[in-house]
């Protein structure tokens, strides 16, 4: 006989309906995609004991353990407890691990590139930022995707998220230490936006062209370019994949601090609550912003946010994307024979 | 700073002569008594400074023959009589004129290499250096590139002068072939009393000196003059150093046994 389940409750508990009747798959959160060897062994142990020994690495850097019988959910949740302690509670989430598994699954795992613990290009410790965001935002039920990337190379694909956070660096120039070798100017011209130009044997930075990648700092042989120790971020919003209107996220805030980023995402939760269409099973945040308009979104999420003086806010917002409905452009094979 | 070797002084341009399509001679008013083969640091405020060899000098003038190929030399090209340029020098060791006294002197010059040896030729022909005889082999790529053509005609009257261009061309009735071919024809008798000077492009100097050695000249009898990038002219900036030699202070004129062992 089939299990008698409260499907909505189960889903919220991070167990999903799968193809195989009476069997579920558990989504394990790994904030920032960073995990210790011991923790991964704990996940492996759950897969071995309750699943069929298989594990899937998700696109969001979590794990999915398939083929767990629904009847094992309580045992799985108990086994999950130490992991939740280490990956959620330790990062400051506002619930106690109580052998009942994940309290919510709406906000997806917060992913992050490897960041400056390893990568020379990274402008911040993305792992730490993702873990901090987990503590600040989890748990809640709204479907929100967040990723943190260490530099504008965007290895984690922040451009495909509801909130894509790009760590940027404000290069600061020591005029006297510059020997005019042009290494920074060349790298910026070749790899980036050409924000630097030479004048009188020195470098001029066009702040409006500078995307804060930090390549000039990496290239400078004398330490004339150094990083402003104050860290800054660019916040991209409302990118998405999906069946109706895939599009990339666009810059909403630039040169803002970590605090501003966190506050804006936190303020988005009540905004969703106010405007979400409850007649739908779930409405993605991007579609809500489409309905209310960018102006309403901007006003409401920036309310009571203390912006740092360097902060810049997008005046308007247009997302490059396409309507999946539109197949007027498509032609069958005989068209091309003509 | 009372004694600042970097401080240039102003010199008024008193004459400009076009030599070829790319080269011109600038004569400036400046008291000068130095050794043929030395050079000056020439500068224009806002443009920069570069070493330029002296192509002639007298008690109250210095001439620079300049090829307009860089920022500074192109800018100099725009200057007119009455304008002032800035110079400092003379720098380096010129030709060892004391060693040339009572000797036969062969000067092999290629292209713009004729400019730095011109004072040596002029002073030799004026009898100022006590040289026994002067022979000249002067080569240019083509007739268009010939520098100081009028003077060469005058020098030919007073010395054994070979003027050659690399390849035959219409309207040219003079000699042709690389300078090395003319060195080959040089009489081998009495080489003991000969001193040879070779100045020109790097490759021309390399093959000409080799030819002179083949001819039977001892390396010690050959003198060359080097041209390198320099920022200071006084042994500080490091640009012209080759091995332990600073071209600016140890050269630009170097004895061949020394020069031949220098690898950039």
């Amino acid at each position, binding site marked *: 006989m089939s299990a008698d389940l409260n499907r909505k409750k189960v889903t919220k508990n991070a167990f999903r309906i799968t193809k195989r009747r009476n069997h579920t798959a558990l989504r394990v959160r790994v904030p920032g995609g960073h995990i210790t060897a011991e923790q991964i062994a704990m996940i492996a142990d759950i897969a071995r004991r309750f699943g069929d020994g298989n594990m899937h690495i998700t696109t969001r850097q979590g794990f999915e353990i398939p083929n767990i019988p629904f009847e094992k959910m309580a045992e799985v949740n108990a086994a999950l407890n130490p992991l939740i302690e280490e990956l959620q509670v330790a990062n400051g989430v506002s619930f106690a691990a109580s052998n009942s598994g994940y309290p919510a699954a709406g906000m997806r795992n917060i992913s992050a590139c490897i960041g400056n613990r390893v990568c020379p290009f990274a402008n911040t410790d993305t792992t730490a930022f993702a873990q901090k965001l987990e503590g600040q935002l989890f748990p809640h039920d709204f479907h929100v995707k967040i990723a943190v990337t260490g530099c504008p190379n965007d290895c984690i694909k922040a451009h495909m998220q509801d909130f894509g956070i790009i760590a940027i660096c404000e290069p600061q120039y020591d005029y006297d230490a510059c020997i005019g070798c042009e290494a920074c100017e060349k790298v910026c011209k070749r790899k980036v936006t050409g924000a630097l130009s030479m004048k009188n044997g020195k470098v001029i930075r066009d702040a409006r062209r500078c995307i804060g990648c930090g390549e000039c700092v990496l290239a400078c042989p004398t330490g004339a370019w150094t990083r402003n120790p104050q860290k800054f971020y660019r916040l991209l919003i409302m990118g998405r994949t999906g069946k109706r209107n895939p599009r990339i996220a666009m810059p909403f805030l630039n040169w803002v601090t970590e605090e501003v980023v966190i506050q804006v995402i936190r303020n988005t939760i009540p905004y969703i609550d106010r405007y979400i269409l409850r007649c739908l099973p779930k409405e993605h945040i991007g579609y809500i912003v489409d309905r209310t308009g960018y102006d309403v979104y901007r006003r409401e999420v920036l309310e009571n946010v203390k912006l740092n003086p360097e902060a810049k806010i997008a005046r308007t917002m247009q997302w490059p994307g396409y309507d999946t409905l539109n197949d007027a452009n498509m032609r069958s094979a005989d068209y091309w024979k003509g | 700073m009372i004694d600042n070797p970097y401080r240039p002084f102003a010199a008024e341009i008193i004459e400009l002569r076009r030599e070829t399509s790319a080269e011109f001679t600038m004569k400036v008013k400046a008291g000068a008594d130095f050794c043929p083969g030395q050079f000056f640091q020439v500068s224009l405020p806002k443009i920069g400074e*570069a070493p330029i060899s002296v192509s002639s000098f007298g008690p109250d003038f210095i001439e620079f023959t300049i*090829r307009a190929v860089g920022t500074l030399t192109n800018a100099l090209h725009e200057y007119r009589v009455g304008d002032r340029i800035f110079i400092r020098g003379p720098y380096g060791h010129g030709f060892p004129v004391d060693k040339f006294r009572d000797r036969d002197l062969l000067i092999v010059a290629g292209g713009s290499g004729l400019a730095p040896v011109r004072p040596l030729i002029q002073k030799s022909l004026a009898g100022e250096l006590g040289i026994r005889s002067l022979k000249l082999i002067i080569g240019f790529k083509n007739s268009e590139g010939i520098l100081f053509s009028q003077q060469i005609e005058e020098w030919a009257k007073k010395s054994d002068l070979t003027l050659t261009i690399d390849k035959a061309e219409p309207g040219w009735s003079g000699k042709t072939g690389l300078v090395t071919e003319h060195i080959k024809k040089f009489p081998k008798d009495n080489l003991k009393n000969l001193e040879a000077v070779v100045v020109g492009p790097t490759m021309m100097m390399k093959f000409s000196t080799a030819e002179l050695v083949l001819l039977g000249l001892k390396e010690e009898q050959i003198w060359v003059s080097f041209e390198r990038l320099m920022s*200071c002219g006084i042994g*500080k900036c490091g640009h012209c150093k080759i091995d332990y030699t600073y071209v600016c202070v140890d050269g630009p004129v170097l004895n061949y046994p020394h020069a031949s062992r220098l690898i950039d």
Partner: protein
Amino acid sequence: MNSYSLTRSNFKDIFDRLSAEYRLFGPKRLAGRGRFSDTDLITCDFLADIDELEFEEKSFMSPKSVVFPADETTFVFNEEEFKEPLMRDQREIIVFLRPCDINGFARLDKIFLENGDRVDPYYQRRRQKIHFFMIECSSSFENCFCVAMQSNHTDNYAVALRFDKESIEIQIRNDHFNRFFESFGTKSAFTPEFVKEDAVKVELPDNDEMPAEIFNHQMWSEYDQRCIACGRCNTSCVTCTCFSTVDIFYPDSRTCGERRRVWDGCHLDGFTEMAGGHSFRKNKGDRMRFKTLHKIYDFRKRFGFDMCVGCGRCDDVCPEYISFSSCINKLGSTLKGEKA
């Protein structure tokens, strides 16, 4: 020669008293300003406060900039004349540095004060104000090979300092500085120690004449591909003295500008480029050969001692992991006819 044992707070007081009369210069940690994010840059610069002095770690840049700044105005000009800029701060300068760097100054002196029989007045006017406060190296850092270069030791200092956990030991060689210390601390018998052995072993070729084959040897060609000509080995080197002259103009003036000299380096593009575009050392391997032989061979031929002091900064800073000490050893093997 007097020695004293000081507490940290003694030393702070002395530092402040010295600051009143001298400009203080030394290794300085710039938090969060390293090449990579969340790393620090340890540079050498003027110090406003004792807390700015980094006495534990090796600096990324050398102290040469105190006498040979990266960019120095040599003249202010208009169309009529060239004028030297004044040195605004006329105070004498105390430089905190390590033995290898003190020996490095002797190399700078050779070029700027002696070579070509001319004194460089810009260098001299700074150099004559310098007093060395030597930070003791009891053991060497990762890439140091000072012992091989015989620059691990020096007596050329006004004051030597040892920074212990609790106390600071000092020895005064220049009695002129006694007055700053005698009212603080207690007399001691401190004498500084010097590094006796480095982890990096370098065997110096002692050839008086470098065989011509070495100049064209294929051992250099590996650097054609490895070196990226960033110039860090030159800019971080305490003994690299090369510079280029540049004229700059004041944008709003028709007539006025400055002549400056700016650090250049044999690994950087354009270093040997003549007007018209010909370069004498286009290949990076040739540049590596040129630098190596200058540092450990031809400088000695001219001045009697090697230029390199084995501070190892070039190895610390090379983004391509080119090791200069390994290169010297490879040269040695090549000279001995071994396969490098």
